[in-house]
């Protein structure tokens, strides 16, 4: 594809540009500094303790489910790390599911089959127009209401149980040797790895909600490729599938990837709604920390920093993917 190239700026214009940008950056930094300084001063005046020393103190609270081994005597920092690990534990699979499922729905909306098109359209409208928080609560209370009590867990296979405590599976490691098997206890199921109802509700809720946005992104991306492209490809004797794979998709991807990565990022941020349904992800753990230590500003700054880093990583990944898909498109 031809690329429009802007005329090179004159040296004077370039310097003006650099100067302007430096000025804006300087102003922003000054504003940030003022904000931090005013906050610190105000907190001191009001007798509110501050500092990051609490990070190395023992957490003192438990975390119900954690990918990283965690005990209440571990440090606050480790508790936050466990929270971040839990965020990723739900966000990454949800990104995968929402992308696959959303793509199918998006393609369905372009299908020649009327029923399929309408169904997919209805899905997108319904899921996008109900607030995610409500969807999560609905998923959560459906999951917990439907499943049998933990004392009457369903056994799906040897050592696989399903109950209000979630889905318990055998897992590696643990207290007693190589394999850690879930066991029926007096009250509930213990041992093994559990996908709790909180986790399942969050995974399903995030995946299906984001899938609706992914579907729209995919549909729009494909619809944006000029009709002539397909017509030409078909005229050249390509099959419909070949047309899709070799002509449509490479061009559509350029329009799809940037908004798609945005969706992935929103998904990761939306995972913080887990505080409503009891899944201990980063924001939930940070909230608990904030309340136990009283270091509100610090905890909030930490959450912001972590999400900023996640955003930057995603943006970087997106740019990389775009370059790659660009190359792919140019090659084919």
């Amino acid at each position, binding site marked *: 594809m031809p690329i429009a190239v802007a005329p090179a700026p004159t040296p004077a214009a370039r310097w003006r540009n650099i100067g302007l940008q430096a000025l804006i950056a300087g102003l922003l930094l000054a504003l940030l500094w003022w904000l931090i300084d005013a906050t610190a001063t*105000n907190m001191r005046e009001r007798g509110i303790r501050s500092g990051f020393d609490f990070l190395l103190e023992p957490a003192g609270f438990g975390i119900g489910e954690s990918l990283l081994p965690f005990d209440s005597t571990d440090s606050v920092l480790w508790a936050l790390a466990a929270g971040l690990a839990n965020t990723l534990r739900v966000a990454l699979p949800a990104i995968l599911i929402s992308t696959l499922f959303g793509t199918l729905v998006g393609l369905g909306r372009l299908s020649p089959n009327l029923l399929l098109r309408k169904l997919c359209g209805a899905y997108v409208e319904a899921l996008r127009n109900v607030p995610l928080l409500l969807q999560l609560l609905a998923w959560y209370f459906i999951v917990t209401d439907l499943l049998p009590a933990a004392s009457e867990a369903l056994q799906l296979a040897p050592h696989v149980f399903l109950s209000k405590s979630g889905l318990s599976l055998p897992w590696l490691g643990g207290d007693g040797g190589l394999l850690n098997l879930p066991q029926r206890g007096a009250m509930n199921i213990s041992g093994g790895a559990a996908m709790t109802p909180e986790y399942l509700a969050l995974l399903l809720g995030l995946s299906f909600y984001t899938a609706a946005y992914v579907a729209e992104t995919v549909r729009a991306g494909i619809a944006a490729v000029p009709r002539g492209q397909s017509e030409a490809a078909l005229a050249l004797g390509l099959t419909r599938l070949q047309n899709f794979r070799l002509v449509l998709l490479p061009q559509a991807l350029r329009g799809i990837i940037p908004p798609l990565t945005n969706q992935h990022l929103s998904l990761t941020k939306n995972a913080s709604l887990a505080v409503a*349904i009891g899944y201990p992800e980063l924001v939930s753990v940070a909230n608990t920390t904030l309340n136990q230590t009283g270091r509100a*500003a610090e905890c909030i700054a930490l959450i912001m920093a972590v999400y900023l880093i996640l955003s930057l990583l995603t943006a970087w990944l997106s740019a990389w993917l775009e370059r790659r898909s660009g190359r792919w498109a140019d090659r084919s």
Partner: protein
Amino acid sequence: MRLPTIALTLLLFAHAPAHAGKTLDQVRQKAQLACGVSTGVIGFSAADSQGRWNGMDVDICRAIAAAVLNDPGKVKYVPLNAQQRFTALQSGEIDLLSRNTTWTLTRDASLGLHFTAVTYYDGQGFLVPKKLKITGAKQLKNAEICVQSGTTTEKNLGDWFKAQGIKVKPVVFEKFEASIKAFFSGRCQAYTTDASALAFIRSKEAPNPDDYVVLPELISKEPLGPVVRRGDDEWFAIVKWVIFALIEAEEYGITQANLEQMKSSPDPAIQRLLGGAEDSGKLLGLERDWAARAVKAVGNYGEIFQRNVGKDSPLKLPRGANALWNKGGLLYAPPVR
């Protein structure tokens, strides 16, 4: 706390400096006391179907409004969940936090706040379904326990089971409602919070109260009381002394009903408390009948207790540790003298 609120909180800390010594003036100027309460814990602070607030914590707000503004109705109730409460007070959104809040060292010494007095001596307990046949907290090995975040409850849970060498799994919810809903849907084998609130949760929220029991042991001390901002000693003193006056009134047998007769009592202590012979209000920056107004509005401490959580209420909690010091309890107010 969600992401957008986070940015707001930061801005909040960055805005204006503390207004030292101005709370009384502001309350008088607005002719309204902004009181932080819970979103609904019957017996302590809960709104009824007409939107009227009731409970012990609410009565403290009313007593203070009566003493300061001469009208117990001039209160704006601000419902706050466990996490929001301290920020609301720090930022000046409320003048007083009267919301089943436990006095601890970390809170008292690092949040820029002062605990004023203890209005209810509580302890943390457990609510369990009867069918699990659990009789003591030590049998909760491996149990999943529903709890609300932003509470002392969450940390006590960690501490106590650590000390017992028992592993449990907390399931932590931001909102009170979601936490009890999850418990009653059977998600957890136990629910934990202050024992006083457990009594309300069992009798008012359970589908069938008889299917649940409150375990006998308490695993912590939870002295609950109102909180004010630091840096305003005048206001701090007012809140403290209105509470002490309510307790003293019980000691002297002054009730809502006999208040007028008591005003002509020959006892100098009663004269002093009710602003007869001596003007005790002057020292606090209040009118001389400040304490009489408070008692007139809500009754003495004993009346507040019985009406909201004691024998005249559905909760029927015993006075226990919340009886007067000379009746076997812990309530002991410094003398109004």
